[in-house]
């Protein structure tokens, strides 16, 4: 079997279990909230419009944005609860995903619930009153059973939406089938993307069919169909959740951002911790501002960031210091203000650089960013998703007077594709990227030193600062990875032929680590 498929299948049980746990919980919570709301809305006409309009409004928010919005919301709430009760709430992972998906699941349940309850034959309502039912008896014995098929159809729609949208919970740190899709997209591993899509689609199909059986059983009053559907659903959920039981030890959560180098480093850190017998969990694909806040709020325990990113994004500094002085200042400020520990440099630098295709650069005679400025108005800049909103872009523009014909943002993988295919003339590459050499790109010089140093550094969460086992396990990393080594590992994952998984690249790096000095 293909190595990549085997690797994906190995991850499937855990991803599927997490996905099922998340969607099932969200759907159940959705039903628990929506059903009473639907009953109230069907009783009181004045409530109907606001309830349905609000649920409809939630539905118009793109799924990813809705999930992303819950992160700052919970973070703020966590600060409040920390101040008041001394206990924070997790702002990353299961909780925000659950809340967002619950909101997302509500509209079809509410809409069908209200339609089912208000659309009942008035003669039956009169009959229920006529035989002497109390309003409560009428609701339980007549209205809900009669509205059940319509309500179930709504729950069925909600289930399919929820299972689909749950793949989007990966970037806010909840493991799901979306992990396949997001990692696959970043490393151009289309097998992974396909496995993720197929698994999510299959899950949605199966659940939809089982719920359909329940719906038909309710509509046609066939106890057997109803029973088969209910039992099938129960067994399917229970079976999917089995892999979760084997976890649960005290684990260290490793965070990564959304590109190949981060996945490799995440796997490498995991490997080192596991060597020391420590439990490991991964939260991959986090946004670069999200990940630091996640560390500070102890939602993740360790991750690798870059000094220049922290300097500008977290400390909001724009001044330029020598590398060592900057790292010392960074270490001091992060410890003092946030309680986070900068354990040390990994040894390589992953700076933003401007790169062009070698043939294009020599044709124009461009060797530095200063040379580029004259041609920029005829050229298109391709950037990753965040560079254009970063302060160093402003600094670069100011220092060299850069003005491009057009600026386009890409997911990093597609950015390299864009320069290959001529859709962009200049890109904001990363210095450790293996594709710079592989695609024959040249890195333009920065004579005015407008771009900061981007030393890779290991960060440790406040609650783990005094954890000597963790620090000991990470010690072999410090100063051990050269830019060349990292570039080689990145290329293993990014190249099109003989592609490797981030885990394999991490094993390659682990084999090159020095033994810890003792």
């Amino acid at each position, binding site marked *: 079997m293909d190595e990549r498929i085997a690797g994906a299948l190995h991850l499937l049980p855990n991803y599927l279990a997490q996905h099922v746990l998340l969607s099932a919980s969200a759907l159940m919570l959705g039903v628990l909230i929506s059903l009473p709301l639907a009953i109230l809305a069907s009783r009181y006409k004045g409530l109907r419009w606001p309830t349905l309009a609000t649920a409809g409004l939630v539905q118009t928010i793109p799924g990813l944005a809705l999930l992303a919005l819950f992160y700052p919301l919970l973070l703020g709430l966590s600060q409040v609860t920390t101040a008041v009760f001394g206990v924070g709430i997790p702002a990353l992972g299961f909780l925000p995903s659950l809340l967002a998906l619950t909101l997302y699941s509500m509209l079809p349940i509410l809409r069908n619930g209200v339609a089912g309850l208000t659309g009942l*034959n008035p*003669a*039956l309502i*009169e*009959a*229920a*009153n*006529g*035989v*002497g*039912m*109390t309003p409560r*008896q009428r609701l339980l*014995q*007549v209205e809900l*059973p*009669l509205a059940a098929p319509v309500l179930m159809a709504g729950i069925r729609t909600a289930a399919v939406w929820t299972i689909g949208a749950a793949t989007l919970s990966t970037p806010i740190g909840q493991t799901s089938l979306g992990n396949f899709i997001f990692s696959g997209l970043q490393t151009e591993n289309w097998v992974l993307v396909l496995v993720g899509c197929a698994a999510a689609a299959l899950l949605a199909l199966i659940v939809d069919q089982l719920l359909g059986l329940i719906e038909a059983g309710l509509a046609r*009053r066939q106890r057997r169909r109803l029973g088969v559907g209910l039992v099938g659903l129960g067994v399917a959920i229970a079976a999917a959740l089995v892999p979760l039981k084997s976890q649960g030890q005290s684990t260290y959560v490793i965070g990564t951002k959304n590109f190949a180098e981060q996945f490799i480093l995440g796997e490498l850190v995991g490997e080192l911790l596991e060597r020391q017998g420590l439990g490991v969990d991964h939260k991959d694909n986090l946004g670069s501002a999200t990940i630091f806040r996640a560390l500070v709020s102890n939602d993740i325990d360790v991750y690798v960031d870059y000094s220049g990113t922290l300097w500008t994004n977290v400390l909001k500094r724009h001044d330029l210091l020598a590398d060592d002085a900057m790292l010392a200042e960074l270490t001091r400020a992060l410890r003092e203000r946030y309680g986070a520990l900068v354990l040390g440099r990994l040894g390589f630098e992953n700076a933003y650089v401007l790169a062009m295709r070698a043939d294009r650069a020599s044709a124009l005679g461009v060797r530095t960013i200063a040379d580029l400025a004259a041609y920029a108005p005829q050229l298109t800049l391709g950037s990753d998703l965040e560079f254009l909103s970063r302060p160093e872009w402003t600094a670069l523009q100011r220092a060299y007077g850069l003005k491009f014909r057009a600026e386009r943002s890409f997911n990093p993988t597609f950015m390299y594709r864009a320069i290959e295919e001529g859709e962009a003339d200049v890109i904001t590459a990363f210095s450790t990227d293996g594709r710079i050499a592989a695609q024959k790109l040249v890195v333009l010089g920065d004579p005015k030193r407008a771009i900061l140093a981007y030393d890779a550094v290991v960060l440790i969460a406040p609650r783990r600062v005094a954890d000597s086992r963790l620090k000991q396990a990470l010690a072999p990393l410090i100063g051990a990875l050269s830019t060349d080594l990292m570039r080689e590992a990145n290329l293993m994952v990014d190249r099109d032929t003989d592609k490797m998984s981030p885990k394999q690249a991490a094993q390659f790096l682990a084999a090159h680590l020095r033994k810890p000095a003792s």
Partner: protein
Amino acid sequence: MGTEPVIEIDRMTKSYAGARSPAVHDLSLSIEGGRFVALVGASGSGKTTTLKTINRLIEPDSGEIRVEGERIRAMNAPALRRRIGYVFQDIGLFPHLRVGENIGITPQLLGWDAKAINNRVAELLDLVALPRGYAMRFPDALSGGERQRAGVARAIAARPRIVLMDEPFGALDPVTRDALGWAYRRLHERLQLTTVMVTHDVQQAVLLADQIVVMGAGRILAQDTPRALLGGHQHPDVAALMAMPKRQAEQIAALLETAPGASNHG
């Protein structure tokens, strides 16, 4: 037959929002125990509103109603309704419950035990001449007439002394309507019920009821025995309404007398 009034309506008025005049205006009516009373009149005359105020499906704006001497406004409405059988045109059998469960619903609400309910359902199926096996069927497997029989069985399941009927046989074909009407009339006597029936069908009212109440524009225009009303009435609407079945009966009688000769006449 008893002479004590079982249902007393005293100066009752009911208006609906948006209507120009009240549906029922200052209406008083006394119904003695054991009577079969038919409420007839044109559409919008207030007969259904009057009927439904008796088991509080509709609450009057003013006036007082007493059932077996008790003021119903002071009673718990579901408890009152469990004491009064109710049959109506749309039948209202619950489609998600079996016929037996439908018939036994009021005893179930009253907390009878399962065995007593089962026995009662069997007894009622016999009483309305439905096969006992129908208890396990769902209502949509029954014909219209069978469903209405089940509806009558449900109304009398908890042994009420009063039964209210709103156009009970209106949706049935003439033959079934006639058969069910007579079957109910026999039940009414056997169980010594007090029955109030709203109907459009003056002919059936004349044939089944002990007493006819003719309503018009929210008021009672006439209240008497069928025989007396057929003899004529000073109110033109009442006279017109009662003239119809009389004329039909006379025409049919004439037809029957001349029939053998007339058929050859050409």
